[in-house]
């Protein structure tokens, strides 16, 4: 009842005053303007040019301060070299379009191990923990990053519990495992593609939302197995994922139809199943994914269409959002092509949360899971 009141007026007044005072007292590794670095990187992968990006590019050429990288470089001489290296390293890995976020995180932590001068396991663990905390605080919105860091730290802690007499052999083992994780991630996609093949039958129509590399792998494998199906892609504003996906799929000779995001309910009766990826899988078994996934899941559920999620297991996170606003805000710039009056607000969140009751099955490299199994897996890992 409180939310229905005119509290939005009060909210607007309070939100206007604090940001002015905050800019000077910000912690050195905070992202300015709370624009999600994760979604910016995704946009960069997709090659979406926004006016924001252009401004950044111009500023980078001109050397004017106020963008993402520069606050870090301005404080580099103040902070220790190592923590600066972690974020740089991570950003370097993250820019590669085919690399999963968690793999980039683990590679960055591997670089920390390589550069570390610790002589005992305990010391190494403490360094890793600090590096991982730095990474996590730098981009609070990326769930794979958090989950990947947690997974690696957990693995390090447990491995050191086993008896390794030689510290150097333990260290080289950790490095080798971290390097192997990239392969695990690729293998994970192949396993997921194999598991989901049975669910795609000849003559089916698949609705896809967002550009998930795992879902693309699934569709590629199905095409290679000579299955006959067609794909409906949503446009995916503002990332333009629909056009990109249709490019990829037409290379594989899969019939594709583009839909406006608002045309999903209109086309839902000719759809047999919905496939989405996930930015993160939360403890309840729900998923956090690109904005629009919740909407599509609701429509699919009301029309009795199954919603399948393809996600690698390292995306499982210890979050439990109770509603849409219960997550760290991940904002991203949205272009409308025309000038918007200043007083008009824009909903800039890049992601939404889909509760588990709208999902049918999750395909992960741990096997086919129903949403209730996710919390079991997380309990096994963390408790």
């Amino acid at each position, binding site marked *: 009842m409180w939310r229905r009141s005119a509290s939005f007026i009060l909210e607007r007044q309070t939100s206007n005053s604090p940001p002015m005072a905050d800019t000077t007292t910000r912690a050195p590794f905070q992202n300015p303007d709370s624009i999600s670095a994760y979604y910016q990187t995704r946009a960069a992968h997709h090659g979406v040019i926004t006016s924001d990006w252009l401004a950044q590019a111009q500023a980078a050429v001109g050397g004017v301060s106020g963008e993402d990288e520069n606050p870090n470089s301005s404080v580099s001489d103040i902070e220790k070299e190592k923590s600066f290296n972690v974020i740089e390293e991570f950003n370097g890995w993250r820019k590669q379009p085919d690399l999963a976020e968690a793999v980039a995180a683990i590679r960055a932590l591997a670089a920390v191990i390589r550069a570390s001068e610790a002589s005992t396991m305990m010391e190494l663990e403490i360094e890793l923990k600090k590096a991982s905390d730095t990474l996590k605080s730098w981009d609070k919105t990326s769930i794979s990053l958090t989950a990947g860091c947690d*997974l*690696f730290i957990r*693995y390090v802690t447990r491995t050191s519990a086993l008896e390794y007499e030689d510290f150097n052999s333990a260290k080289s083992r950790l490095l080798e495992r971290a390097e*192997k994780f990239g392969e*695990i991630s690729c293998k994970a996609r192949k396993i997921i593609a194999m598991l989901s093949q049975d669910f795609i*039958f000849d003559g089916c129509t698949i609705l896809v939302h967002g550009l998930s590399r795992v879902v693309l792998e699934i569709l590629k494998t199905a095409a290679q197995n000579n299955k006959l199906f067609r794909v409906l892609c949503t446009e995916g504003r503002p990332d333009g994922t629909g056009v990109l996906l249709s490019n990829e799929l037409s290379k594989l000779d899969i019939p594709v139809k583009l839909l406006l995001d608002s045309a999903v309910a209109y086309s839902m009766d000719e759809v047999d199943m919905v496939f989405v990826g996930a930015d993160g899988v939360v403890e309840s078994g729900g998923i956090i994914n690109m904005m629009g996934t919740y909407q599509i899941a609701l429509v699919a559920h009301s029309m009795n269409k199954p919603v399948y999620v393809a996600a690698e297991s390292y995306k499982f996170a210890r979050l439990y959002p109770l509603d849409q606003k219960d997550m760290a805000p991940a904002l991203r710039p949205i272009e409308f092509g025309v000038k918007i009056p200043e007083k008009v607000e824009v909903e800039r969140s890049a992601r939404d949360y889909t509760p588990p009751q709208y999902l049918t*099955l999750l395909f992960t490299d741990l*096997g086919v899971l*129903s949403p209730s199994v996710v919390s079991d*897996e997380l309990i096994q890992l963390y408790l």
Partner: protein
Amino acid sequence: MPDVQSMVLEFVNKLRKRKIEGSQATARCTVELLKSVVSHHRLPRANQASALIDAVRGVGAQLVAANPVELAVGNVVRRVLHIIREEDLSLATAAVSELDFNGEGMSAAVVAAAARSTLRPPSLQTLLEGTTESATVPYTFSSGVDSESKTADKSSITQKLKDDVRGGIDQLIKDITDCHEQIAEQAIEHIHQNEVILTLGNSRTVLEFLCAAKEKKRSFRVFVAEGAPRYQGHVLAKELVARGLQTTVITDSAVFAMISRVNMVIIGAHAVMANGGVIGPVGVNMAALAAKKHAVPFVVLAGSHKLCPLYPHNPEVLLNELRSPCELLDFGEFSDCLDSGSPLVQVVNPTFDYVPPSLVSLVITDTGGHNPSYMYRLIADYYSADDLVM
């Protein structure tokens, strides 16, 4: 060995010709067959468990191919494989603790941890550990033990694995045979005084369940939907009356009309899938939809041999069996329509129905009553992840 081979072929024939009816009978025959396979298989010196697993899996693949719709066969084969793996692991940990006492080089903790990880399904914990190291460790168990002990001990270890596996299989046979009593014990918690129960078709589990409640002096009424075209509901109704229960026989089409008068729907399942979906006799999906509409609890009774670790992707077609249309029509009734080259009349007689998990309130197994979304837990207890594909 040739004796076992002929037994296998005979059983495969029986399955293919659908001579064995009912999942309990099929499960019991399958277990007996696998027990003789295990007893007669000559084990090599090293890697005994893997040899046994390969033998059982080979036979199992033949059985499943003979009747893919009878899921109990696959379930039981996977249970036996899981038993073999478990017994091997417990023997190995016992051997390792002996080795440790003798002062062997390899760290006991590392070895035991690796062995444990081979039995567990892939999980987040083992994600980073990789599979190469865990795969090599089991091979060193048998060889390590062999190099230590003398020949007399070697054969005794072979015998030990077989004995343990046979013991496990006997326990499985007992579980399959006793499932009715175990489930019936829980009847008193679910059926209350002056209730009206609806059931469909004929299931022995349901019969025992209702009679157990009757024994405990609960008075209730039963509506039995006749379950066309085989009319098994008539058989059930006669049995219930023989045991002194007030019974009403209704047609399948009357289920929706009667559902508002019913307190609970209880049916016996043919199989319960990993997502909680239920395969039952044709007509149960209709009863489930009716129950959902009127908020009536839909209870499914299933013994543990009916619990299948697979996820259904097209169960109405792939897990269904079309029987002879002579059950619907008498011979000669439609002969003028059916005689022409391409008849316009087709008769479809499916055996099973798939009920999605959202319509099921409770699944009662011999271990207790569970939510359909809890099935994955029971599956993790009874089956190993490596055995899903045969």
